Each structure stands twice: as C-alpha cells, then as structure tokens.
C-alpha cells in the first residue's frame, strides 16, 4: 500500500540548525524537506500517531553540519530523540497521555556545553487527559506537565489545568513559557540553574476577549497576545513584580503606583499594555523577529503583517491565498516560512517578503455551499499521468501527483483573489477531465445575493505543453439557461463533452476548429440538446468506446447516440434519483448509484436492458476498471442511530458485474465524501516504490478520503487473495560486501561521514574476523 498526501500544517514546522532543512510534522512521521529545492529529503518514521511538535537541538556553529538531533512528541504518548541526518531513532520516552505540545527550555545552554549527561533536560508538555470524559463540558482535559528527559521521569505536579490542551509558547531564551487559557494568558518563568518544581512561578494577564495566540519578545519583557477579534495586545515589562529574581523586594515598592500602568487590566503584573487592531478576523500568528524590532502577525485573511514594534507602523505581504497558521523563522535571518491552511508551506525571503519556494501538499477540503447532495464531484483523475485534480478554496484546481506525492501545478479557474469568508459566493462547482487528461472542463457558480446576479459559467480547457498545465479555450456563460449544471463527462477518443442540467436537458459540446479562416474560430460549441420528458438530468457518462451516451434522468437511465442525438433506449427505474452513473469497463454493464432515503447500488445489462442485480447500499463513490469487468464501490454502512458523523468508517467492495458477491472488501477510515479510482500502474516507478505491489499491469485502486487530516489518503490496496501469489516479492538481500554499497547514493541522502566511517570500518573489521575463522 502506498500512502501519501500528508497534512503539512497539523503543527508548526521547524528549521534545522543550518537552515538547509525543514522538519515538518506529517501525520505519523516527520518529513524533512530541503529548503533549497523544496523536495522531500527523508522521513523520520517511528511514531504511531500524529506527531505534534519537533524541537531541534541547537548546536554551536562549527558543528552544524554533523549534529542533527531533535526531539519529537506525538499523540501516541511518546517523546522520541532522533538523529535526523542518519535518520535514526536514538531514544524513546513513554509518557502516559497524548502530547499536544512540547517545549524544552534551556536546551541550547545545555547542548552548548555538550555535557548531556551532567545536567537534566526538562520538557514541558501539554497533554490531553483522555481519562476524563470528552462530552462533559466542564472537564479539564488539558494539563501542563514536566518531564525529565534525561532520566525519563515525570517531575513535580501539574502546572496548570485547562479545558482543552493548549499549545505552549516559549521565549527564545527559554526563560518564559506561556499558554493561553480563554481570556487569560498564563506565563511561567523557568529558572536557568538548579531547576526545582517549586521555583516555577506564574502570572496571569487578563483580557476581555478569547486569546488565540501569544508570543514572547526575544530579549525584553514584552509579551504579545492575539485574540479572536483580531486585536493584538502588547504588554511591556510583564512580571517585574512576581517573576523576577528579586521579585520579593520589588513587589512592595511597586504596588503603590497603580496609575502608572496604562492599559493594564486589574492587578495584572505589567508596566503597560497597548492594543493594535488591524486584523478583521482572529489572529493565528504572532512572532517577534529575532532582533526584537518587528512583530509578525497573520490570521484568517491571509495577509502577513509586519509591525514595527516601537512605532506601530505596518508592512504587508498580501494574497498568500489562504488563512495563515504558523510562522517559523530560521537560524538564517533571511529565510523564514509560513504555513497556510491550504496545506502549503511558503519559504519566504525575509526583508523583501518574496516567496522563494512553496512546499505544496494536497489541498485540504474546504467548506463550500453544497446545493445538492452530489457525491464524487470533488475529485477528478488524470489516468495517463497519475494525477488527481481537486478544487481549492482560492478558485484554483490543484493537480497532485499520486505516485510522486507532490503538487504538480495549480490552474486558476476563476480570476479572483482569495477572500476569507465562511460561505464563498463564487466557487468551482464541478470539474471533469478527459481520460487522457488533454481536456478539462469546469463549472463555476456565483451564488445570487438576494436573488441578484447569479451566474453559472462553463469553461473548457486544453492541456498545455506540460502535465498539469491548462489553457482556457472556451467560456460559456449560463450553459443551460440559468439551470444548474449537474454533471460533466468527456467522450473518450473524441473532442466531445456532455453537460447535464437539472433544468431537464443535456447538451453535447463539440470542439470545432476552423484552420482555413485566418481569423480564429475554433472552440467548443453546442452540437445538440436533448431532453427526456423534461425530467431533471442528474448524471451522465460515455461508454468506454464512446458509442453510447448514458444520461440519468432522475430515476431512469436514458441511452443516446451521441452523434445523431437520438434516444436509443431507456432503462429504469430506481427508487430515488440516480447520482452517479458509470460504465463497467468495456463490458455491456452500467453501474448506477442513487442516494437519498432509499439508496441503491444497481447494475444494469445493456444487452437486454434490464437490471442484473442491486443492493440497498449507501455508496459514496464508484470506480470501474478500464479493461476488466470489475468495479469498486465505497460504501458507508448504515448507522442505525441518527445521522452519520464525519469520521464515519467505510468499506470498499470490489465486485464483478456478473456476480453480486464481492470479490474483496477493505475497511477504510473517514469514508464520508471519499472517492475511488482505478489507476494504471505507474510503470516508470515500478522498480522503486511500488515493488510490493503487483508488477503485472493490474490497475491500482486509489482511495481518497475527504475529511480533515489527510494522514493516509490514497493507497494501492492489496489486490484480492486469488492474485496474491502473482505478486513477486523482491526481497532485499543484504550485500556480502557492505563497503560497496555504503557510499552509493547521492550525497544529500548519505548519512554524515562520522557515521559512515564507523560503519565502514566495522564492516572491514567484520570481514577480517570471518577470514580469521
């Protein structure tokens, strides 16, 4: 099974010490990207659940090339210590509870001495108490605990308890850590030397709105907090009374000049508090620059704002295309990165704020108004080059390579900028790719504002010179005279497409090219219009050879001759309107799915125009093989009590059209709104990654789930048992002479020389040992 399409933005990425690598939490692994190329270098595999934070151990400048160690925490209740140059797991510490966030204060001062054994290393972790019931609103499920990483023991009691686990922020010196808790900020001062639990003291800072994020100034006692309304509060000189070394003495003198603390609420321990308000929505990012002169902030509107801390002047980096989630700076002052909510990480060259590289993951699903319950319109597949096309929130279509596991390109369907609204008025509603990927059609919808100005636009695109590059060919406004378009399909082998509408008609579009005339007249035009008893058309498909067009008119399937636009036959009917129609390969069978109160999966025989068999199943998606007469459906099992939750598990069933008994079944997670497709195996990569799959041209089944948290969204599922013996195992035979292979490979993949050298020497030693015997 291959998986891919990881979520890059589940937590903040971290730069390595030489700023050449970026460590990104991707599900159960930590992926390490090169900042120069933006490509994946290696992965740290070992956690069994979501990795939540990474802490790179800082080292002195001369050792940056060799010392590549990091700590990771995960929701599988472990903390791991890695050498990420090798990459190998060094140490694993068990914690009782799932970790949400971890900081390690004073890690730099310790490793600078390079005396790891002597002093203790303490980790402050925010854990989720899973023992307490989740449905109880008042339960305090979040805890801040301290762990001694050197001897793997928990220290002291709880620092704080919160409703839900919070992210811990730490000042760059490691002196302060803080969390937000509703309308308060808790700040602790961590003593550098002789660490004792009792020495940790806390102050609270209050506000009237819920906090969303906070940040510490690198050198001064300044704390910035961002709230859900977009305000940024900056406290200066916090904790002078309670958090300083000599706090006891000072506190007596401080209390009498209350009026000298402008803006500070109540009895909070700060000199002054000022508020900046530019963001219209919640602030997600707050970050002080390393010299402390600037404050970076960002939020839902996708604009990175740079505040000059002394004057409050602003500079902007607009149009990042998506809400911003995390900002990370690197040891190299000219490089930093922004994580966006659309699962992309932009590397930014700093003073100019120009995007140098983008690491694009698969776009996360976004909410858009779903006017009609329509399955499997979220994805389209380019079978020839192994791409999946999916819609993004900023009016693009992203092409994502399934086998290579990276973003190939983005096509701007609708020339509009991203706007952070909850209910977008303009969105790409439908898309369809021809089988060879040479043509694409999209439907974009603009919703009416109080009945005004709605628009449906059908666009046809042709592929450019590169894979995933499409050029606009034809724009058709209101293709079905103000009725909503329900389906699009291309005819394989022809430049012909069909679009169906709920207004009761379908239109066949044909590409005309007029080469003789010097003025360009080529483009897509409507060739014919068809309707069946004025019934709303809900789905359409062309047969594999393109000779038959099947259009679902609510509960019946109408078969047409696409050239002559003549009705050939009608088969029907199902109980509820058909939502998906598909030809089963080159066979004479049609598979239809219908949803609603009485869902049905039905297989129809075209040779005698009758139903072959059917199930009462709620199927989300169907995929048919190209040559074999098999198809797979993604089924959501009926939950007896109430509506299905989002994380509903599903079953993939593989059928042969002639037999109602499934050939194979697989259980999958989060199947709601998922999608299936059969991909021809990628021959170019067969020898490298896909070697555990079948090598005999059996298509791969792709499964994509559409819920948040794409940890493993597609995969080649093992083919059914009867074919298993055909799978040729290619066992990795360790070489007799390791020194021949130990240095092979490109230099950036090789472990550091210190490691290689020892391995090399040991292999030599071993050999001599054997010869001696």
């Amino acid at each position, binding site marked *: 099974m291959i998986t891919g399409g990881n979520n890059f933005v589940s937590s903040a990425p971290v730069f390595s010490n030489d700023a050449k690598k970026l460590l990104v939490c991707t599900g159960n692994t930590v992926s390490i990207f090169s900042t120069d190329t933006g490509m994946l270098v290696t992965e740290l595999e070992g956690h069994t659940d979501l990795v939540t934070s990474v802490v790179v151990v800082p080292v002195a400048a001369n050792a940056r090339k060799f010392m590549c160690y990091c700590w990771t925490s995960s929701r599988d209740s472990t903390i791991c210590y890695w050498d990420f140059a090798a990459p190998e797991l060094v140490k694993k510490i068990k914690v009782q509870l799932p970790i949400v966030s971890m900081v390690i204060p004073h890690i730099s001062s310790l490793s600078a001495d390079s005396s790891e054994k002597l002093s203790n290393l303490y980790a402050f972790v925010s854990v989720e108490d899973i023992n307490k019931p989740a449905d109880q609103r008042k339960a305090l499920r979040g805890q801040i605990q301290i762990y001694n990483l050197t001897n793997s023991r928990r220290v002291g009691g709880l620092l704080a308890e919160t409703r839900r686990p919070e992210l811990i922020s730490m000042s760059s010196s490691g002196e302060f850590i803080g969390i937000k808790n509703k309308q308060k900020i808790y700040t602790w001062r961590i003593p550098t030397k002789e660490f004792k639990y009792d020495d940790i003291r806390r102050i609270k800072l209050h506000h009237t709105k819920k906090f969303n994020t906070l940040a510490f100034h690198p050198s001064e006692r300044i704390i910035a907090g961002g709230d859900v309304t977009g305000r940024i509060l900056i406290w200066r000189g916090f904790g002078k009374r309670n958090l300083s070394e000599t706090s006891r003495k000072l506190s007596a003198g401080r209390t009498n000049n209350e009026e000298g603390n402008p803006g500070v609420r109540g009895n909070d321990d700060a000199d002054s508090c000022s508020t900046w308000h530019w963001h219209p929505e919640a602030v997600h990012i707050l970050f002080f620059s390393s010299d402390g002169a600037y404050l970076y902030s960002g939020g839902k509107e996708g604009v990175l704002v740079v505040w000059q801390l002394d004057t409050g002047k602003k500079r902007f*980096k607009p*149009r*990042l*295309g998506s809400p911003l989630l995390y900002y990370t700076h690197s040891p190299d002052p000219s490089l930093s990165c922004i994580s966006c909510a659309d699962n992309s990480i*932009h590397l930014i*060259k700093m003073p100019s704020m*120009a*995007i*140098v*590289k*983008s690491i694009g993951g698969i776009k996360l699903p976004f909410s858009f108004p779903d006017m009609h319950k329509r399955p499997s319109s979220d994805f389209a597949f380019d079978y020839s080059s192994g791409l999946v096309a999916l819609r993004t929130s*900023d009016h693009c279509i992203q092409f994502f390579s399934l086998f290579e596991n990276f973003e190939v390109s983005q096509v*701007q369907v609708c*020339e*509009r*900028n991203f*706007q952070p*609204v909850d209910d977008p*008025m*303009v969105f790409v509603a439908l898309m369809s790719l021809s089988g060879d990927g040479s043509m694409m059609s999209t439907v974009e919808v*603009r919703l*009416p*504002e*109080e*009945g*005004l*100005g709605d*628009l449906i636009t059908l666009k046809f695109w042709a592929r450019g010179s590169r894979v995933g590059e499409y050029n606009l060919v034809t*724009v058709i*406004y209101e293709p079905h005279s*103000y009725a909503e378009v329900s389906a699009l399909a291309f005819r394989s082998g022809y430049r012909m497409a069909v679009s169906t509408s709920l207004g009761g008609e379908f239109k066949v579009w044909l590409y005309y090219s007029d080469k003789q005339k010097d*003025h360009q007249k080529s483009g897509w035009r409507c060739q014919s219009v068809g309707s069946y008893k004025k019934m709303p058309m809900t789905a359409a498909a062309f047969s594999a050879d393109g000779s038959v067009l099947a259009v679902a008119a609510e509960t019946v399937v109408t078969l047409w001759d696409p050239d002559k636009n003549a009705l050939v036959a009608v088969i029907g009917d199902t109980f509820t309107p058909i939502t998906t129609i598909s030809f089963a390969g080159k066979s004479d069978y049609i598979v239809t799915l219908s949803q609603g109160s009485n869902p049905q999966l039905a297989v129809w025989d075209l040779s005698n125009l009758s139903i072959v068999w059917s199930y009462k199943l709620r199927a989300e998606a169907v995929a048919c093989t190209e040559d074999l007469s098999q198809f797979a459906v993604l089924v959501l099992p009926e939950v007896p009590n109430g509506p299905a939750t989002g994380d509903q598990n599903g079953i993939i069933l593989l059928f042969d059209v002639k037999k109602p008994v499934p050939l194979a079944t697989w259980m999958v997670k989060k199947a709601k709104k998922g999608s299936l497709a059969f991909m021809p195996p990628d021959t170019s990569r067969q020898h490298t990654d896909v070697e555990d799959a079948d090598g005999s041209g059996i298509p791969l089944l792709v499964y994509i789930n559409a819920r948040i948290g794409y940890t493993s969204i597609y995969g080649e599922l093992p083919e059914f048992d009867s074919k298993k013996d055909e799978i040729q195992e290619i066992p990795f035979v360790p070489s007799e002479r390791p020194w021949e292979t130990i240095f092979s490979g490109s230099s950036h993949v090789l472990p550091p020389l210190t490691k290689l050298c020892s391995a090399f020497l040991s292999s030599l030693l071993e050999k001599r040992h054997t010869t001696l015997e």
Partner: protein
Amino acid sequence: MAADTSKPFFPVESRHRPRQPKTLTPKSRFWRSFKSAPLSNNLILPVTSIEFSPLAPHDLAFSVSASIHLYSGSSLTPKSFSPLGSFSDVAYSPSFRCDGQLLAAGGESGLVQVFKLDKAGHAIRRLRAHSRPVHVVRYPRILDKLHLFSGGDDAFLTYWDVPSETQLLTVPGAHKDYIRAGSTSPISSEVIATGSYDHSIKVWDVRVSNSSSPVINFDHGHPVESVLFLPSGGLIATAGGNSVKIWDVIGGGRLIHTLDSHNKTVTSMCLGKIGTENGGESRIMSVSIDGYLKCFDFAALKVTHSMRYPAQLLSVGFSPSGIARVVGTSNGNVYIGKKKKKDDEKMEIVDDFSAFRPEPKEKVLRPTNFRYFHRGQNEKALQSDFVVKKPAKVKLAEHDKLLKKFRHKDALVSALNGKNPSGIVAVMEELVARKKLVKCVVNLDVDELGLLLGFLHRNATLPRYARFLMGLAKKVIELRSEDLQSSEELRVHVRNLKRMVAEEIKIQRSLQEIQGMISPLLAIAGR
C-alpha cells in the same frame, strides 16, 4: 532567485463577449478601398454600356442616351471633348480598338460609327448595313486594327473592314432574335461569340469558309444579356435570366458551372483583376436588375463578394489598372469607385548634380554636447541580444484600487462615474460575489443614487444585462423607496424608469406577436 510565486491582484473583468465576426475579410478590405461616389450628371436615361480602354491609362467610355461619355483613366474626370454627341438616336456599345486610338459605337438607328479619340469631332467612319438598332459593336481584342464586328436587332452579324467601310462578311439571320451580346476572343482576332434573345450563344470564326453557320452553338436557357470570353479564351461566361453560366468552348460547349446568385435578370458582366496592381486574381463581376454587384471567382467557382447599389444596375466595368470600378444604373447614375491611394509615391527628382554633392559629414559627439550624455539610449536591441524585460507595471482602474481596499461603495460610485456599461456591470457583479451589493445600495447617498438610477434607466433593458439589472432596479426601488419619495430629483429618475419599463413591455408584446406568427410556420416547416 526564483520569481515570487504568490498571486497577483486580479482586477475585475467584464464578461467575455462572443467575438464579433470580423467584417473585414481581405476581399471586403479590397473592395472597401474603393471610394465610391455617384456621378451627378443629370442623366435620366439608362447607362447601357461601360467600356475601358485596353491601353494605359485605360480611359473610360460609357453610353448614355444619344452620347458616349469619355473619361480620363487616370483621374476619372471627363475629357475635354466629352461627350461624343454625333448620334441621331440612342448610342450603344462603345468599343475601343486594341491600341485605344479609335472607338466604335452602335446606335438605335443602326449606324455604326468610328471615332478618333484625340479630339472632338464627328465620326471618321460610318458603317451602314443594319436596318435595326445595333447593340453589339466589338473590335477584335488583339492585333487586328482594321476590322470590326457588329450585331443588330435585325439578327445580322457583320464583319467590317473599317477603312473602306465595306462588309467583308455578313451573316443574315445569325440568330433567330435580337443579338444583344457579343465578345471577341482574347486569343484570336477572327473569333466572336454572340448571344441573343433566342437563348442561344454562337461562336463565329470568319476564317471558316462556310461562314453562315457558327462554329459552336449552345443554349443558355434564357434570353442572353451578356457574353464574356474569359482570359484563357477557352471559357465563355454568359448571363441571361437570373443565372450566369460558364461554358467550355474547347470542350465543345460543355456547361461547367451555373451561378444562381442573382435574384433578377443579370444585365452585364465584366472581367476584373483584384489584388495587387500587377497581376492579381481574375474575377467575373456581374450586375443585375436587383441592384447587386457580385464578384465571382471562376477558379474556385464561388462568389467572393457582393455589393448592393440603390438602383437597377445595367452595366459594369472594371479598370484593367485596378483603380476604378464603374457601375451604371437604369436611372442614369454612374457609380465610380476609385481606389484610395495609401500614400502618393513620392517621385524622387534626380538631378544630375546630386551625385557630386558632398555627403553631409556626421558630427562626432563631444562631451561639450548635451546629446553626448544621451548617446546610445535609444539603441534597439539586436536579435541576438538577450533582453531583460522590466516587469510590466499593472495599471489598475480606480474602482479596482478601491475594491482592493474593500471600499465597496466608493468603488461602485467610481465605476458609475465611468462611461463603460460593461465595466460598471462587472464591478456590480464583483460586489455580488463579495455579498456587498445590497449594502452598497443602501449606503448610497442621494446624488449617487441618482447616478445609479440613471445608469439603470439607460442600460437595464439591454438584453446583455437585462436579467441582472432589472432585478437590481427592482431591488433599488424596494430598498430606497423613502428616499425616492422625498427627493424631487430622484422622482424624475423613477419616472424615466417607469417609461422605460412601459416601452420594454411594448417591445416584448410585439415580439411575442411575431413569435406567435412564426411558430406555426416553424411547426409546418419541421414536419
């Protein structure tokens, strides 16, 4: 460093329109290059025939009433001795000799006269043989300067020796009806094709001993109005009735193509060379009573251009030099289309001394000169140079700048102050996409509301915007009814809107009536 991949600001874009079919094809561009002007010469009688001289500068002759008008071929102005007026009755069919020195013309009286064209005066030869009007007088097109063909309504075809005014050959009863058309062969001086109202076309060769019978005889099917030898000499085009037919003479009178593009009788044809002045493609130009001039490409066998004139057309001529197109009508108008010259070629006057004049020496720029510091700035990049282009500065319209700052109402007002309706609608649609249009309408003050209502009054019924703007007009009136009642100025706008709606309803009703009339016809046609 890689270019910044973040997205630019997208300005609002009005909807694409279907591309207007380009009206200017190369052919129509060619024809449009003729500046057309009717000649106001107070003629009432029909212009029966138009002829260009075969020699440069291709003088023009046309027959109207009892005179032949002569125009200079280069300037298209009447010659000093024009018109030739020694006709006792209506003159017909002027024909230039192949060297352009002489002109022969027939007439209603049956007399064929030959004129010398360098000065005014009476005919130098008078050929008397026909007893009825002579509509066909033709000089041979090549070589022969001595002979002349004439055909008359008495169905006589006569071959003349002009100097001696004697008939070398007379074919009595050459046709069974009036001879009204004739064309001499472009490759032989002894061959003529004649067409008659008896529907037949006959090709005669005076060298044939038994000359009372034609070489070839074929039937057009209608009274023949015009006959034309095509330049190869192997094809003949004939006009009669509504059709023009092309015949293969060498192949024994085989019909090659029939062209039925006229609605009424085709009266005349001529040959034209279009395109570049030297050479170009040959076209048959035919004119008809229906007022159309059609241009027919006989190589591709299709009509390439057609022009309409406001009168019945009787005659057509096209200058061999390609600079003039002349059409004569039944009410005496002559339309002369003269090709517009792009720029007068400047004649360089080369005097003998210019070769010896010293070339002006190029001054060497010195740092004392201001231009010294600007030298090389206007240098063009060579083809081999690598050009580093400045990124084009994006120019944003005022409303785009305001939309970028989310000042929606200001953007709407700024667009309304502009002139372009499609731009205004584009801004409105953008506001809909941002869900702000209704809010903007509510926030408009009275002046701006007046602006909006004025725009709606002007554009709401345009079919392109009607669906959106009608709804908007309704919404505006709903939302701002109190303001509309209180302000006198706005009430005027509302009155205008009301009138517009009433007009539109009237139009829709009449359209429905038309639809009601058409739909039964369509139903019948569909059966």
